[in-house]
């Protein structure tokens, strides 16, 4: 399998991920390579960073054959209580041609997988959202989304860890939950699973 690898500046390489690879396995595989300092796994690409004064990581054939790696941390299942009181519930209901109650039910009945960790510290893109409620992001993002806001943008749902600008449809507020911790970092990691429960 020949990988498309390109320079991302002089201290990083970006590669296109072959389809159907499990993101957590990709992260661990890339982190295990000699010379790799850090890794970002996004929807269809990953990047590895390295010391520009050191050897370049070798990426040829890394996803060929048997390459399962041990993982540092077992995948976790998180349950987050949500108060479904977001300002965009009606908007998502209109998109779904359904009631707000049905939107809530469709959001909370799935178990989501962490697909990408990025954008903000601890921000996890969770998938897959039920297509009926997969409303596209707002045309004009809000200047200020409160910390703990639960949102939907297309097939992804997630929790804003801090006050920030944001374009997702806000459907609720996470209760007693912070996606980012100053001591241990991001709470949701690639491959973890998340359920929402109305609280």
């Amino acid at each position: 399998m020949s990988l498309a690898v390109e320079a991302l500046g002089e201290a990083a390489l970006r590669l296109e991920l072959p389809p159907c690879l499990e993101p957590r396995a990709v992260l661990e595989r890339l982190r295990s390579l000699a010379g790799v300092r850090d890794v970002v796994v996004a929807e269809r690409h990953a990047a590895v960073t390295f010391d520009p004064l050191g050897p370049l990581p070798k990426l040829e054939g890394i996803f060929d054959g048997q390459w399962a790696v041990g993982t540092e941390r077992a995948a976790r299942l998180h349950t987050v209580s949500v108060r479904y009181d977001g300002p965009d519930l009606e908007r998502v209901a209109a998109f779904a041609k359904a009631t707000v109650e049905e939107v809530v039910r469709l959001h909370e009945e799935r178990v989501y997988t962490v697909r990408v960790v990025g954008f903000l510290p601890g921000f996890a893109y969770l998938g897959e959202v039920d297509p009926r409620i997969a409303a596209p992001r707002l045309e004009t993002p809000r200047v200020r989304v409160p910390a703990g806001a639960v949102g939907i943008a297309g097939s992804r749902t997630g929790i804003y860890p801090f006050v920030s600008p944001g374009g997702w449809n806000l459907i609720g507020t996470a209760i007693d939950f912070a996606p980012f911790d100053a001591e241990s970092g991001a709470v949701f990691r690639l491959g973890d699973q998340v359920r929402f429960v109305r609280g």
Partner: protein
Amino acid sequence: MADRALQIMQAVGPAWIQDGGREGLLHQGIPPGGALVPELLAQANRAIGNRWDAPAIELYGSLDVMASGGAVRLSVGGEVHFLRAGERLQIPASGTERVRYLAAGGGFDVPIRLGARGTLPVASLGGYEGRALGGGDRLALAEDEDGPDERLPSLETGSRLRFVPGPDSARFDPLARERLSSEPFRIDLSSNRVGTRLEGPPLPRLDSDAGISMPMVRGAIQVPAAGLPIVLGPDHPTTGGYPLIGVVIRADQGLLASLQPGTTVRFAPVEAEDARSIWREHAARWGLVPALR
């Protein structure tokens, strides 16, 4: 020497603790952070014998400080001051520099958060209580190791900012790549630690959608649909949907960030391999060796 501290009497404009940054956490959505202009951090620190990346105050405006609990050696940029306990130093706003660093002998003793002591404002993480400094704040100082002082060179302005082209070059009209390498751009007022916005001729793209999230790094030149580029800074989002026409080389990232809004800049493409050689020389000249962790 117990209890030496620097008391903040007043801060006008942002001022926060920054150090060399926290590399290696992109996979948790945490950007590398660190000083907006590492070379100037090094200059301030080395002038009083600190490690180049000791925690210092990244200062955008004016600051009024007082030494407390003992004598304190300070450097503002390369300019050294000696304050006896109770003595004050008033640093007026600079008319010419976008940012300056105030270093104290020993460095500021703030808690380590996720491997480093700098401030990540969006997460209210690190530095002094995760926030900008204000009157009444008392910054403890670490032991002054009294290392040899070193005068570092000034940043050389006026030369082109170099970038490694790609990785999304194919998503741009060839005119875009020509423009980036030949036209002048102006630094926009809205620039900050997240990114430097540029005004100038738009860089036309071949598609207009925001697209899927892709990995991002400091220096990445992202181009939204309207065509005005943004160069990502130390507190950049670790993923983003805008295509990248290039990545500013490390040796020029601090230089770009040091320029005041309104300054005109020009860019020039270089190969990644050449950028690595440039960095080798630049890092040696400035002593920007990564701290052993």
